[in-house]
């Protein structure tokens, strides 16, 4: 995969390496089979021993982009520019997606488990924490269940405390052709619980990588509330991926939020908006747009952080192309 060793900017390489080491320490990056990773010859890593060794591996993942691509990303992220968005439909993807199923249903993984690939294929796993935010009954618990392919709750039971849900999602990177397992951990906290206990919100926001802001298509107030939600959800250090999800889109007969409103919100904020709703039928197609976009945005963000490139505001409206579920 690496025709050329990373040359040139050793400082940048070092920064990237220490970034990946940090994430590794935080438990964010898992490496299933370190031995098979490509090593990059860099003088600095000899002094650093074990950690350097490992960072070298991850650099393989982090810096395998042609510079033109990096420059492009720094300006704005075009949907589908980093990952193959329709990959789950391809024959090649079957091998990966079949590991996520069991008897035609989504396979459940405990914390000690991960999808097992045949020894010939080595796949790395990257971990991300995604906080689901939104007012009570908007559909947070339902969304987490939907993304995990579990039965969605019929009744609204208020969630007490925090519940997290793990979703594995294989993604094929565009430039290197590498496949990665994204392991999303969705954090869902009942809104009324959140208000009763002060410690829950900080815990949800601790080291989060992305945040999903939910509104409901049948509750206009929840849509209006988005901007204050966004202000509350993200703090000063703003290298967090933000995505808006409109729930209950299946109840369009009663819809309270117009397409025009959604479009102008998207244009003004630069935050992509997704629509979800209806029964879970278990197909990959119903979760692919959101999960692919999340993966792409998170990957992009990590690239920026690792490369120490100053994140620039994306040109307005462009990320909005991601919308449409």
């Amino acid at each position: 995969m690496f025709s050329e060793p990373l040359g040139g900017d050793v400082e940048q390489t070092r920064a990237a390496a220490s970034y990946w080491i940090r994430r590794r320490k935080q438990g964010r990056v898992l490496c299933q089979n370190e031995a098979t990773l490509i090593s990059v010859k860099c003088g600095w890593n000899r002094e650093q021993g074990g950690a350097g060794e490992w960072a070298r591996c991850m650099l393989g993942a982090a810096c395998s982009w042609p510079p033109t691509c990096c420059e492009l990303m720094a300006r704005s992220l075009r949907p589908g520019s980093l990952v193959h968005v329709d990959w789950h439909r391809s024959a090649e993807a079957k091998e990966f997606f079949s590991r996520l199923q069991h008897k035609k249903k989504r396979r459940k993984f405990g914390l000690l488990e991960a999808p097992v690939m045949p020894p010939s294929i080595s796949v790395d796993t990257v971990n991300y924490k995604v906080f689901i935010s939104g007012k009570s009954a908007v559909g947070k618990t339902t969304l987490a269940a939907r993304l995990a392919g579990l039965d969605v709750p019929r009744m609204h039971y208020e969630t007490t405390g925090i519940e997290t849900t793990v979703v594995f999602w294989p993604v094929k990177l565009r430039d290197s052709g590498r496949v990665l397992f994204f392991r999303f951990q969705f954090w869902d906290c009942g809104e009324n619980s959140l208000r009763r206990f002060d410690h829950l919100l900080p815990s949800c926001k601790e080291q989060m990588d992305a945040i999903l802001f939910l509104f409901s298509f049948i509750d206009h107030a929840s849509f209006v509330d988005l901007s204050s939600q966004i202000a509350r959800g993200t703090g000063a250090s703003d290298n967090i991926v933000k995505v808006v999800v409109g729930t209950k889109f299946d109840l369009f007969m009663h819809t309270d939020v117009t397409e025009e409103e959604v479009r102008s919100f998207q244009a003004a904020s630069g935050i992509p908006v997704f629509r979800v709703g209806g029964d879970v039928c278990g197909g990959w197609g119903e979760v692919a747009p959101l999960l692919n976009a999340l993966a792409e945005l998170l990957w992009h963000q990590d690239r920026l952080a690792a490369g120490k490139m100053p994140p620039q505001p994306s040109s307005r409206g462009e990320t909005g192309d991601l919308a449409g579920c």
Partner: protein
Amino acid sequence: MFGSGQDVLLSSCETERGGRVVWRVFHDSVMLIAVSGQDTEAVCEFQLRRLLDNIWNCMVLILGIDELVNVRNVERLKRDLRLCYQLIDGFLEASGEWMGDVTHCVDCLLPPQLVLLQEALDAFSHAAESEFGCLLVHGKVVAATEKWWRLAPQEVVLLTVLLRSLGGTACCDQPVFLPQGSPTVPHRLLRFQLLPGADVCVLCGPSPSLQRAEIELVGRFWRPLMEILWTCLALKDHCLPGSVTLHKDVLGLLLINRESSRAISSVRSAVNPPGAPSVARRWELLRLFFIFTVKRYFVQDEVAQRQKRESLQEEFALGFSHQPIQCYMVTEECKCFGLQTPHYQLYLLMPFSVPTFALRPLAARTLSTLTATGF
């Protein structure tokens, strides 16, 4: 209310067609009323009373006792009570493979290699800055720290039901008040799903954070035990390790350790003589037989006292001057045998084909096999 105005204590009533209404006032603040349908044979006063206790405990667990006893704003309380609905429904819909709701004993599963699991649990809890840790498989307790066992049995049952209601999620951080141990100060109940169906949980204070505990501790302590956990998971319904061999005619059993308030219930799906009830039905029969027996014969002290005070119905049991120690029942579906000693109670289901005179020796033998495990 009319009655209490006149200093009369009325505790339950029955409708003409057999429906039943039972109520109780908790802490002079909240009155809970349970109404059963007309088929009273299925739901008796004993069950309704346990239900009221359980529901009150659910409310305390989620909201804390202060909010329930010093009600300042009823509307707010009503809104906050919605947080309890899921747990309460868990008790209302109780059925199937656990019986803690009626036995008020902790449903357990006897694992192979308990020592290894216990060591891992103790070390894990210690690392999570907690003295209260518990490992559950299929919602039944496999191992718990010493302090966990010192919680009131009803609390442990309640926590188990709570953990069961959290279903398939990976981790939880759930504020809980302990109805007896800590009704005013909340603790954090952290739960981690190690494998689907195998969970470990700890009760702790402000630290560690859920995320830190998951990343730093879960894999470190539990990955080496994956194989054993899988073996435990395979014991579903059976709940006893392969090393315990029971007589081939035992369809299902419930064993209660009266001292430790722990129970094992087991339904043997591999034992399937012709005409025997299905696995689901056996769980139901065990539950019904337990309720029937406790109501009529093995009247527990606490219940007996309350009945002396409150009930006029169970005259039959109260009429005994002694405690029955064995009982049996023959139905069209199967034969049941109940047996009690100072330490244990055993309830057995056997196929209809077993001769009635053989029930007693079979039960005695089963009891000694089971107690030999040290349960």
